[in-house]
């Protein structure tokens, strides 16, 4: 602590340089933390939402194609299947095009069995079963549009040529994606003229080890039919959905690291300049009796403080900006809520500390080990 004054005073030796260095580190770590948050959030969503006992069965030709609703009856008869729930993508728009969030029609009788980990209250389930126009909304969408339970909302059809008017009866919680809206499929069926097709069927299996067996049974059961199925575990399904973003994620990560590396080099140059200017003072301190190790610690502490200040400022502002603007819209599905995860916060602070220490390490070691007489001669 007795050296804190020395570190503090040297930090403000050149206020402008210190402030500019802190800001440049802050900007680079803002970019880094924002970019790295995207893939981290994606991975987190995958691990948070995917259940090890849920299977997604959809048309083998792709998600754009539907499968007959009658498949559900055959699937529930397969051993180890506890429940099966049909789901249709409605693709409705709330108010304006940019006010989108994922909305699906689901079997109201099956929802509590298949989504038992979505923390839907029994009262909400009861209302959902009782009211044909009922809907359940994710907490984030509720917050984003200032919705409340009991409120009526209208979704404009973008795939279907009709709108649906829904009454909010509960909030989705637990592992539910926070932007989803679920309403009853019987309502959609009736409005659409009972086409008898659905986007997919969610299947709940009794144990994780039975999942491969059930997947094989489903796909074999509908092989050579007019709508062959492709079944996959929930994590594989979400992972596949995110696959399209992977290249962008990878680029974001690489860009983040390039930005950090670049600013690290700039900070190293600044640190070198700052330490070079003080070679004489360092020599005087050493001649007084300060050891090379103490000098090195003091110089690295200064740089560490600069790095951490930049890091706190950078990831703090990224955290606030991401929270305020909730990058992306609800239409992005699972990617709808890019927030800075604690892991990225920790990574960014570690990166800032590393920038601080490594940018000054070379010049600091050199200054701390420099021959005292040579350094003093340069001052004279």
């Amino acid at each position, binding site marked *: 602590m007795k050296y804190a004054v020395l570190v503090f005073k040297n930090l403000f030796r050149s206020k402008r340089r210190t402030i500019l260095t802190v800001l440049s580190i802050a900007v680079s770590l803002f970019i880094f933390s924002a970019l790295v948050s995207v893939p981290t959030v994606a991975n987190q969503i995958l691990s948070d939402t995917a259940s090890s006992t849920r299977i997604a069965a959809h048309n083998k030709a792709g998600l754009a194609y539907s499968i007959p609703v009658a498949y559900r009856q055959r699937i529930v008869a397969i051993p180890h299947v506890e429940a099966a729930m049909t789901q249709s993508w409605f693709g409705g728009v709330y108010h304006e095009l940019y006010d989108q969030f994922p909305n699906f029609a689901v079997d109201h009788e099956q929802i509590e069995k298949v989504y038992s980990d979505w923390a839907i209250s029994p009262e909400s389930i009861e209302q959902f079963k009782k009211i044909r126009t009922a809907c359940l909304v994710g907490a984030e969408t509720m917050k984003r549009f200032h919705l409340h339970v009991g409120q009526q909302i209208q979704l404009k059809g973008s795939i279907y040529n009709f709108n649906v008017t829904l009454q909010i009866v509960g909030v989705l919680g637990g592992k539910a994606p926070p932007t989803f809206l679920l309403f009853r499929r019987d309502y959609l069926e009736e409005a659409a003229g009972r086409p008898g097709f659905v986007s997919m069927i969610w299947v709940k299996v009794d144990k994780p080890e039975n999942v491969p067996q059930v997947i094989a049974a489903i796909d074999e059961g509908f092989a050579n039919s007019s709508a062959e199925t492709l079944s996959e575990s929930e994590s594989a399904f979400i992972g596949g959905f995110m696959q399209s973003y992977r290249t962008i994620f990878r680029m974001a990560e690489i860009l983040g690291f390039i930005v950090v590396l670049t600013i690290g080099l700039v900070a190293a140059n600044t640190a070198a300049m700052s330490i070079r200017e003080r070679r004489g*003072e360092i020599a005087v*301190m050493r001649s*007084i*009796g300060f050891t090379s*190790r103490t000098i090195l610690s003091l110089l690295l502490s200064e740089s560490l403080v600069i790095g951490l200040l930049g890091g706190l400022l950078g990831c703090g502002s990224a955290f606030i900006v991401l929270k305020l603007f909730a990058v992306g819209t609800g239409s992005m599905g699972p990617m709808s809520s890019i927030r800075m995860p604690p892991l990225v916060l920790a990574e960014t602070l570690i990166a800032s500390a590393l920038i601080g220490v490594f940018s000054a390490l070379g010049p600091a070691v050199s200054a701390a080990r420099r021959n005292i007489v040579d350094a003093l001669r340069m001052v004279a």
Partner: protein
Amino acid sequence: MDEKYAIDLEHVVRIYKRDEFEVRALDDVTIQIPAGRFVAIMGPSGSGKTTMLNLIAGIDHATTGRVAVGGEEITGMKERDLASWRARHIGLVFQFYNLIPVLTAFENVELPLLLTRLSKAERRSHVETALRVVNLADRMDHYPRQLSGGQEQRVAIARAIVADPTIIVADEPTGDLDAKSAEEILGLLVDLNRQFHKTIVMVTHDPRAERYVDTVYRLDKGLLVGTEPGRRGAPAEAAATSA
């Protein structure tokens, strides 16, 4: 090595390598300075004065020969041990004061005490005493840029004495000062020598210095060419004439 000498140099040679050239800065110099003396090392530029001072202060190593200061042989000490030894035994005063510009006079003087186990209150007490000795108790919150050259040098002297070192080494302490300030600094060094019995070794070009010291050692081209008594207390005119 004899412990009655504060400084004991035996057959000291210091050779610097400058590119392909070898410079013999000190050539077989033997000097014994008794404890409690105020001595001056004088000589033309390049005579080896500062090299000798650096060896005494333990910030440079002799190529050959033995250097003992305060009864301790420092010739073979490792850098880490030397740093700790310097902190305990040596107070350094430089020509250009070499104060840390971002620290106040108080903080500059406190620097050597940061290396000790003294509490904050003890450090404050020591610093205030040192600044009182150099008559700068009222300037302790001033930064170096707010002080005159003479005041800066007095702060540097306070820094040199604050840890109560065995020996004070001063490299051209009056070299950057006007005549009045130079006299004040020399007077202050005499006071330190008389009142606190500090051994002081001063490198100087300043002929006035002869009036303040006990002994003058004369170097030329790395060789000790003369040892003569100082003219402590002699009138300024007489000293100037003899110089």
